[in-house]
């Protein structure tokens, strides 16, 4: 109990004094996870929608695989990205290992299946509703996907937020490919892991509270934005 209390105090002290390290770590967390979210969404939203409207031979297999990939172990993803980016790996010359870029790549791999799968579930219902009309209007696949994404944007927000939640709280993969280097690749989760290992529970807890607050803040902000953005609430 004392540790938790000390953690709350530490968190307040860090936030009120706008601790330079804390701000840096928090911003990097946001930068990595939001970049990963944007890139993953750019792939996953159209792909999930496409899966919902297209009938092809191995569709069931593709969907089952996608659902299985939602549970992709981050540590294994980290390992793979590490091997690909390491000096002896195929992309070693790019020198990306232990940079925020490497962390973004790992997180994109982790959250893309998650976002695509939730998108597919949501879009399947909307497509069932719109199917006859869009076929009758002789729409192209592109027009269908764009229409579904636009009209289903509220449910897609849930998909994106689930992806963001997974990315911001993820530690295994970014620890491996980022290396938790101070002032370079240290983010909230890896910092918490480090401080816990060192026995500095107050600081670890403080960072933990900041992390939770950050996740809440981003969710509230996105919800507020999407509600004021458009008329109507269907």
């Amino acid at each position: 109990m004392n540790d938790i209390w000390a953690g709350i105090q530490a968190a307040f002290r860090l936030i009120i004094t706008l601790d330079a390290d804390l701000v840096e770590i928090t911003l990097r967390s946001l930068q990595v996870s939001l970049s990963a979210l944007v890139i993953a969404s750019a792939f996953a939203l159209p792909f999930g929608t496409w899966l919902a409207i297209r009938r092809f031979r191995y569709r069931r297999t593709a969907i089952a695989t996608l659902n299985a990939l939602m549970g992709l172990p981050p540590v294994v993803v980290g390992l793979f990205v590490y091997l690909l980016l390491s000096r002896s790996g195929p992309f070693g010359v790019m020198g990306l290992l232990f940079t925020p870029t490497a962390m973004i790549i790992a997180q994109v791999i982790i959250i893309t299946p998650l976002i695509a799968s939730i998108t597919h579930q949501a879009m399947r219902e909307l497509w069932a509703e719109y199917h006859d009309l869009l076929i009758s209007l002789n729409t192209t696949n592109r027009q269908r996907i764009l229409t579904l994404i636009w009209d289903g944007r509220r449910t897609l927000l849930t998909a994106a937020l689930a992806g963001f939640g997974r990315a911001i709280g993820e530690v295994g993969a970014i620890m491996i490919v980022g290396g938790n280097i101070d002032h370079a690749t240290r983010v909230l989760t890896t910092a918490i892991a480090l401080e816990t290992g060192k026995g500095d529970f107050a600081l670890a807890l403080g960072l933990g509270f900041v992390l939770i607050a950050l996740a809440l803040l981003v969710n509230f902000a996105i919800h507020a934005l999407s509600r004021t953005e458009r008329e109507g609430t269907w």
Partner: protein
Amino acid sequence: MVSRPMSVSLSNVLVKRRGKAILGPVSLDLDAAGFTIVLGPNGAGKTTLLKALHGVERISDGKVEWSLPEVETRQAQAYVFQSPIMLRRSVRQNLAYPLQLLGMPKSEITLRVVDWAQRIGLEDALDRPAPRLSGGERQKLAVGRALIRNPQVLFLDEPCANLDGRSTREIEALLLDARDTGTRIIMTTHALGQARRLASDVVFLLNGNLHEQGAAPAFFNAPQTSEARSFLEGDIVE
């Protein structure tokens, strides 16, 4: 849109679902003008016939041949479903949608949308979400959305089912207007009164087969087959 006559001819069209024939084989010719009413009991294949004509039904055998090339044909047709499908957008955006798909300039779209909103009596509801409209308003919007492209052929699948007298009259007025400006209309209905009011010719389907076809007055006054006679008299035909 350039009006070239658009007639259609079906030869031995057969539609199967799970090995069972639900329509046909049907051979049928429809002229480029007029108001065709497709009559028949439930499950007679009316909707399937409409969808086959529209080109959205998978046909097992036979041919549907329009007098125009396929791309033009699809572009010049519109279809109104039995339960109107509303895009989750405002009335304005629902009306604009078919025109946006064609890549029409925005100013032109705005003009047409306002014009059609007035014709269907929804000019005060332009910014309301379409899924929140009442049943009659939705069907009027669906008809307006279908007519806004000035289609040469309009299909309607029981557009007035579940509507009250006033909404039915408003929709019928829209359809007669469209007919007078040269739109070919093919419509299914269960209401015999409506069929008598609108039809220029009648197609009578029974158990997936074309049972009788003819000009409206002849069909209503002196049906050729006993099934059509009992159907018109209100008996249950199976």
